[in-house]
């Protein structure tokens, strides 16, 4: 590694760490009436401090970072695996699967005895939204893998992912047509929200990151080899189906957890690796981990802004990530720096 590369990576890591620290503080200070450090100090001395900061703002802030980190990690893995800078973590049917899971639970009461049996309705209502979204995401990826007949071919995997996405979205629309009451809940899910993140979410997301980050990092050399093309990677002794299965499993777990806790947060997974490569081009080992950091920082920033921009109302965090992330990608395209 050259000195310049070392400096770039160090600068990026320090920059992300400093921004994260700043945004964590801002996240604790941001309340329903905007955010101020004075207000935070005043509130910390009040009897409600434990409840508001300890039970609402702190887990929401940490949860936002963890969700973004999982999406950033999954985005870098997806872009490396599919050798496509426009690949995002939702590509393999996880988003539409999670969406269908949520819609089914929301529509349970309307469909009970009509579209679905009472027994199924009972099971669905017991599962809860978070579990349904997680199960749906994994199911979406599972169907994609089945349709692609495993992970032998990247193109087949991508095509299967697109088809599964379209079919599951259509099913989801069919359910909401039969049960229009589920539409509002579905909309909240589709826009993404960090408002419901509690400590239990943080535990689930944190454990997910502890599993997925080392897994993606350990397999990153395979992603480096894939930059030479699939045939060259195979000639270097890589068992590509096994590599794909390991990385798709990590991808599915990271995306499924993030989506189940915060809905479909747009663009974080797509943009984070681009941000990292823009500031510190590096092999995938560094890029995947730094993308997790960038994703966490990006979603945290969006969460703080979402709470503060039109306080006491909140902007859906997915709208902000789409605006921030999409804007950045457009700027990159304008400068022709997308690689």
């Amino acid at each position: 590694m050259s000195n310049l590369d070392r400096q770039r990576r160090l600068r990026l890591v320090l920059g992300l760490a400093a921004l994260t620290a700043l945004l964590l503080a801002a996240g604790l200070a941001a309340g329903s009436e905007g955010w101020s450090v004075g207000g935070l100090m005043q509130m910390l001395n009040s009897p409600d401090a434990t409840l508001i900061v300890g039970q609402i703002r702190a887990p929401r802030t940490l949860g936002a970072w963890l969700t973004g980190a999982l999406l950033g990690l999954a985005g870098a893995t997806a872009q490396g695996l599919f050798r496509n800078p426009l690949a995002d973590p939702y590509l393999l049917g996880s988003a539409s699967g999670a969406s269908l899971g949520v819609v089914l639970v929301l529509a349970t009461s309307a469909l009970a005895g009509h579209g679905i049996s009472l027994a199924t309705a009972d099971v669905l209502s017991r599962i809860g939204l978070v579990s349904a979204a997680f199960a749906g995401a994994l199911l979406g990826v599972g169907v994609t893998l089945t349709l692609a007949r495993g992970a032998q071919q990247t193109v087949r995997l991508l095509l299967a992912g697109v088809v599964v996405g379209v079919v599951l979205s259509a099913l989801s629309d069919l359910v909401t047509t039969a049960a229009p009451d589920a539409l509002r809940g579905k909309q909240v899910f589709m826009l993404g929200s960090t408002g419901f993140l509690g400590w239990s979410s943080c535990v689930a997301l944190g454990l997910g990151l502890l599993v997925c980050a080392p897994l993606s990092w350990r397999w990153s050399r395979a992603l480096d080899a894939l930059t030479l093309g699939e045939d060259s990677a195979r000639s270097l002794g890589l068992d590509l189906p096994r590599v794909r299965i390991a990385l798709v499993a990590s991808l599915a777990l990271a995306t499924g957890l993030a989506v189940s806790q915060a809905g479909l947060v747009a663009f974080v997974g797509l943009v984070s690796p681009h941000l990292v490569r823009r500031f510190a081009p590096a092999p995938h080992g560094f890029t995947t981990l730094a993308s997790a950091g960038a994703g966490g920082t990006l979603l945290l920033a969006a969460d703080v802004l979402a709470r503060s921009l039109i306080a006491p109302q909140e902007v859906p965090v997915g709208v902000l990530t789409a605006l921030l992330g999409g804007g950045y990608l457009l700027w990159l395209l304008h400068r022709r720096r997308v690689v």
Partner: protein
Amino acid sequence: MSAPMLLAQRVSVQLGETRALDQVTFAPVPGWTAIVGPNGAGKSTLLRSLAGLQAPDAGTVTLDARALRDWSARARGTQIAWLAQQSEASGELTVREVVHLGRLPHLGLFTAPRAEDDAAVEQAMHETECALWQQRRLHELSGGERQRVLLARALAVTAPILLLDEPTTHLDPPHQIALVRLLQRQAQRGCTVVSVLHDLALALMADRLVVMDHGRIVAEGARDDPALHRAFVDVFGGAIRIERIGGRWITVPQLETSR
């Protein structure tokens, strides 16, 4: 270095409607063998089959008398190094990081590089004259420079069998000659080097030649073999002739002849 025995026996490969290989039997021997033939003759398909990248529809490819598919991917990777015809290389890796990928079959995904791996990488970069820009990224290089880096990546495997598909692509004449010398050195070390070449003058510098047409091997022999020369001229429809000038065989275009 003694190279293991690679053998393709009655190998047939069907690509869509095309019979890309038709019952080809070929056993490359230590030394440098060049495969020549018109477009679509099956040269690259034969090389891919020998590398284990193309499963034959009929016939077998064996390495040391064991079917190639029975070798573990890594063990096969340490024995056979392969260079693709068209570089798909992309991404943010530096030249040195790309060449280091050649050590993957020895290291696997999870082992840190050892001193001998670094030495193999240094040697490969030295042989291909790309050590000077080892910190540059692949997308910052010209086509010829990239080709030298990818060749260094193949050399860094230090495999006894080298399969190279059009290794002279994008290379300027001095580097084409440097490549020929490099392949000759590899052959002298006991490696089995097989390269597909479209540059017929360069191909005639190989120890042996294989002439292919319509998915079959139509001639095989030493570069001085007159029967091989006749087959060589025939598969190109008489559009070339082979002459000996200054002690070397060269091909001359027959402009008055059309296929």
